[in-house]
């Protein structure tokens, strides 16, 4: 938990350009080929104005019908060749661009997902999410929609000017009169557009956020009769966005006005030059016609070109944020140490995990202290403990006492500032795999099988079913489409207790020698409590385990209990020892036990497994994916 500030790096313009060129350069042959084909296609369609000019000349010269028919066929042929080549080149370019894009986003994702947990936490996961989704989308959109348009417009513009020059260099020069106006318009617009459009994007994404939250929290809003507040807030954002859109349109209008001016200047200049040249007999009427038609044809592509400058600018910003992430991956950044992390490399379910050390390892923590980045107060101070092989330890403490942090360090996600944590014999090259069941409850998109195979991709269906049965998740076996049942908001929604049940089944699939459990779900009902308790017992059996006790029964069933207070060890011992000692734990337990034993409140009565965990969840209940 730390402030949500984007502290992940952003690549500078030069680095971004280099990276882009590197990625495109890997396919330079195909790139050149596709551009060449596109060039051919554009050139073919640009035959049109001179042929039309020839038609004019042929008519003035009183040529025969045959000549006109030939010219007409040429036009049709040019259209056919142009369309064919544009299609072929466009396909080649699209395939290439999409390949480069997929490579980039896969690298971004892979780097992001391998960032050390500390980096992620201090950067704030929202920054990472917005990069792997919004920035990737912005760049994809630019590459898929804007790039082909821009390529086509650029080729058309360039070739039209060339065509004009071939007709007559004086006509071409006249056409260039509009250039200074274009440059001025583009500069003027770009200097202002990113401010306004940046604002609009921010307002619109804030508005989208409000919509998402209100839709997901509809029941809560109804319960508090807060409809007015939420609708007003939404209306406020949305009207401000409209206001800003109008500012944007004002900018665009002035920009368009300048473009129109440039178009008129160019056209008038070419017509006047043509007038002079035709008058002096330097060019034919047909040539002048062709030139005017060329300039008229240019209006469209030039507009597209200048209009897309803003999109390109935005895509570049997104790209620099993506390159900022991929650079973490191979730039010797903190990502590198992760490869050796026991949490990953030594994982039994991993595709290429090393041999699993036999036997159950012992956990030893010596003098460990830890503070979060930027925080002066340490979360853990001089903690020492030992979990003998195959036994379990329960961590008890108030929120903020450091139990979850300690659990995470023991699980190998992060290094202590001081002290040492060893798991198993320290000499072995690979620490034994440690598996952490986190407090966060997350249902992965997709089917039941997809959710389970996260922990062991190659597990067979039979293995999945066995794991479910062993943790007592009979309800999952009875789902309509079995293992292929789609879960979550688009399928069968699950409550937190059920999701956590699946998390426990995953532990069995992964079968790690060491398991750290920090699962916080304590859904209501004596039946469920007993069910999850039994699942927990099954999961810790035969493993060295550390359990963060969110329910006191978890502590009672553990071999040893350790009580944390303000990051320090307050007491430790077996359940009985601590009760006898009469300290904090004993007081807690006595209060708990007194109630639990009251008749009629059966805390551990084994309930029928079927009506425990599953339940249709209305909108509010679905675990929200990061937006």
């Amino acid at each position, binding site marked *: 938990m730390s402030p949500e500030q984007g502290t992940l790096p952003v690549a500078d313009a030069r680095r971004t350009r280099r990276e882009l060129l590197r990625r495109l350069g890997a396919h330079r042959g195909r790139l050149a080929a596709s551009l060449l084909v596109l060039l051919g296609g554009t050139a073919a369609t640009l035959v049109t104005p001179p042929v039309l000019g020839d038609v004019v000349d042929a008519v003035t010269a009183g040529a025969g019908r045959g000549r006109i028919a030939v010219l007409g066929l040429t036009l049709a042929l040019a259209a056919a060749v142009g369309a064919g080549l544009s299609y072929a080149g466009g396909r080649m370019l699209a395939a290439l661009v999409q390949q480069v894009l997929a490579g980039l986003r896969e690298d971004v994702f892979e780097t992001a997902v391998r960032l050390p947990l500390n980096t992620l936490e201090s950067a704030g996961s929202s920054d990472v999410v917005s990069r792997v989704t919004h920035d990737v989308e912005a760049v994809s959109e630019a590459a898929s929609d804007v790039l082909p348009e821009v390529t086509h417009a650029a080729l058309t513009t360039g070739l039209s000017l060339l065509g004009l020059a071939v007709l007559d260099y004086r006509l071409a020069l006249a056409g260039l009169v509009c250039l200074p106006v274009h440059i001025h318009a583009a500069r003027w617009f770009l200097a202002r557009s990113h401010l306004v459009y940046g604002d609009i994007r921010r307002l619109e994404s804030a508005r989208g956020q409000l919509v998402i939250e209100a839709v997901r929290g509809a029941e809560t809003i109804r319960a508090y009769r807060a*409809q007015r507040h939420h609708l007003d807030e939404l209306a406020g954002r949305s009207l401000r966005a409209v206001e800003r859109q109008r500012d944007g349109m004002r900018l665009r209008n002035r920009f368009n006005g300048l473009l129109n001016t440039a178009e008129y200047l160019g056209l008038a200049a070419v017509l006047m030059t043509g007038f002079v040249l035709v008058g002096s007999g330097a060019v034919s009427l047909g040539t002048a016609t062709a030139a005017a038609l060329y300039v008229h044809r240019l209006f469209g592509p030039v507009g597209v070109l200048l209009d897309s400058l803003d999109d390109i600018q935005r895509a570049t910003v997104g790209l620099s944020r993506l390159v900022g992430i991929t650079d973490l991956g191979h730039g010797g950044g903190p990502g590198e140490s992760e490869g050796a992390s026991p949490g990953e490399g030594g994982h039994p379910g991993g595709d290429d995990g090393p041999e699993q050390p036999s036997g159950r390892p012992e956990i030893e923590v010596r003098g460990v202290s830890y503070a979060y980045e930027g925080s002066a107060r340490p979360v853990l101070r001089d903690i020492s403990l030992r979990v003998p092989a195959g036994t379990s330890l329960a961590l008890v403490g108030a929120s903020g006492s450091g139990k979850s942090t300690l659990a995470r360090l023991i699980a190998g996600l992060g290094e202590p500032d001081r002290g040492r944590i060893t798991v198993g014999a320290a000499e072995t090259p690979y620490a034994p795999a440690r598996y952490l069941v986190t407090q966060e409850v997350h249902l992965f998109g997709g089917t039941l099988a997809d959710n389970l195979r996260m922990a062991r991709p190659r597990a067979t269906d039979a293995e999945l079913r066995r794991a479910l049965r062993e943790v007592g998740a009979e309800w999952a076996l009875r789902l309509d489409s079995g293992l292929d049942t789609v879960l979550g908001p688009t399928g069968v929604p699950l409550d937190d207790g059920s999701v956590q049940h699946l998390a426990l089944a995953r532990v069995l699939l992964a079968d790690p020698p060491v398991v750290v459990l920090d699962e916080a779900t304590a859904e209501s009902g004596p039946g469920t409590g007993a069910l999850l308790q039994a699942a927990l017992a099954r999961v810790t059996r035969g493993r060295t385990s550390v359990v963060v006790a969110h329910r006191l029964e978890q502590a009672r069933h553990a071999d040893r209990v350790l009580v944390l207070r303000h990051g320090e060890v307050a007491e430790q011992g077996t359940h009985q020892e601590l009760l006898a000692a009469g300290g904090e734990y004993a007081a807690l337990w006595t209060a708990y036990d007194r109630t639990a034993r009251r008749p009629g409140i059966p805390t551990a009565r084994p309930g029928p497994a079927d009506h425990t965990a599953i339940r249709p969840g209305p909108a509010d209940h679905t675990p929200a994916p990061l937006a």
Partner: protein
Amino acid sequence: MTPPEAPGTAGTVEVSGAPGARTTEAAAAAGAAEATGAGEAAGAAGARGIDEAGTAGAHGTDEAGTPEAPGTPEARAAGAAGALGPGTVRALFRVALLRDGRGHRMALTTLAFMLHQLCEALVPVLIGVVIDRAMAPAGRAALFRWLAVLAGVFVVLSLSYQRASSSMVTVYGHGEHELRQRAMTRLLDPRSLRRRPGPGEALSLVSSDAYRVAGVSWSVVQQASALTAILVASAVLLTISVPLGLGVIAGTVLVLVVMHRVSMPLEARGLAEQSAAARAGEVATDMIAGLRVVIGMGGRAEAARRYRAVSDASRHGAVAASRSVLAYGNLGTLLSGVFLAALTTASAWLALDGRLTVGRLVTVLGLAQYLQGALAQAGAFASHWAHKRASARRLGGLMDEPPLLAPGRARHADPAGCSGRDGRHSPDGQDGTAVRWLPPGHRAPLDLRPGDLVGVVPRDPAHARDLSDRLGYRVPLGRGELLIGGADAVDLGPERVRARITAPPHHGAVFSGTLRSNLVPEGQEPDPAVLGAVVLDDVLEHIGGDRAEVGEHGRRLSGGQRQRLLLARALHTGAGLVVLDEPTTAIDPVTEQRVAEGLRGLPATVLLITASPILLSVCDRVVVLDGDDHAHDHDPKGTHR
């Protein structure tokens, strides 16, 4: 969730219906929502690039899902009345185009766009005129005269476009705004909806469907301009030569028909492929959202592998989609090119015969070239309309969805002592009118008196949710089930019941904004006694005071902190009764103990639906609803607190 018939909830309404049957539809809707999330953010510049992904999933198949609400004939009557209401396609288009003076503005805007298009068509005509009247006969005066006319046309062209597009932003922006507000109002209807759309579907209704229906204004002006272009060009050509004009009209119709035929299947394919492209973003979000879970299980490699797989599929989808677009675009180029060639040949032959001057020929050629563009645009119109109508139908379904809950009776008004319309602010909202509740399946009613702290032990989580749904009037209630100060909840209606009983859902939502905004309505001060009771001090210290932002969905808080915040919010309403459904499931036992003591110290009347021994230990009374048709009633301490 699964067993859709949860035992012992016969009277309950399964809002989400049969899950299996609607999976694909919901998936399509969710896909659309994802896609538009991006669209919303990116669609800043205007109405370009509307993603139409949602149309694939046809809605309105809520057969099995629609439950019969027992004992609410009023609701059904209200529903029937609603069917005539605001949900027709035409009504929605009217909102987008005509309401709030938009009709007037829309008409002017359309005219301005048509004027603009007329000027655009005049440019090639004038080029022809310049060549015909000035260049061929070499007349300097004519040159300047016609260039001046051209300048005038450019001025009108530019100004009309600027005026029209400015005005269009207003029409479109406000139209979309109003549609979104209407849809949102329906989704938040205090009386709830008979068939409530899931989050994915709701999102796509409020964002992409509203967006598309509002986009009807763009369709209107674009089509009006394209039509103008074609009409002007044909008219000019008719004045030049009747056969040519007729030929152009025939050719135009032909091209349009072919393009339209081709566009439909291409577009359908494109949509499917687009949604494949959107999947990569979904998986990325999913994996990063669950990254701690992934890391905990050592699943980073698997996460990366899955992303690569979906990214690859997404790449194929994108390539295929761009192939469709390319094919369509280039077919347009080809057809209009052939059209141009035919027109050129025909008009040149006419010129050879002396039936057309050279300048006229140039005009014809210029117009033909100009028509190329307009033709390509007009081909896609029909499919645009199809998408917009589909969106409007979906949105209309929401507008017309009958409410789930009966409105209550106005005259049956307020229970004794509760005259204020808003219990929260009225001084006698807390007058502590007793609540009498008869939980379904139990004979003995439960009386709650002011100041009571009563525990109710549910059978299982589903039962707990059901009980809190009833007390929060989120599901239809039977007569006599819940009495407030002697008045039946059914007569009071949901709003007045909620003013007196605060019963938030177990998984309450935390909204982005400050901690304070999540605690109390604007302008109210948090109550230190409540903050102390739910041990919120460490939360305040953690995020830096009640003015600090809690992040999206309260993500800056841990699960336990969020739960304490939700608890504090419920206790801040000052309602006569606060119902808490398992309020401490994410809180550790040490803190839970403190919360329990804190609750006991508060003067509020509280009903705790919980199986937690720690919470139950502080209750004055505990009732176990174990389905044996009788409740165990305890006084845990045998004394008053």
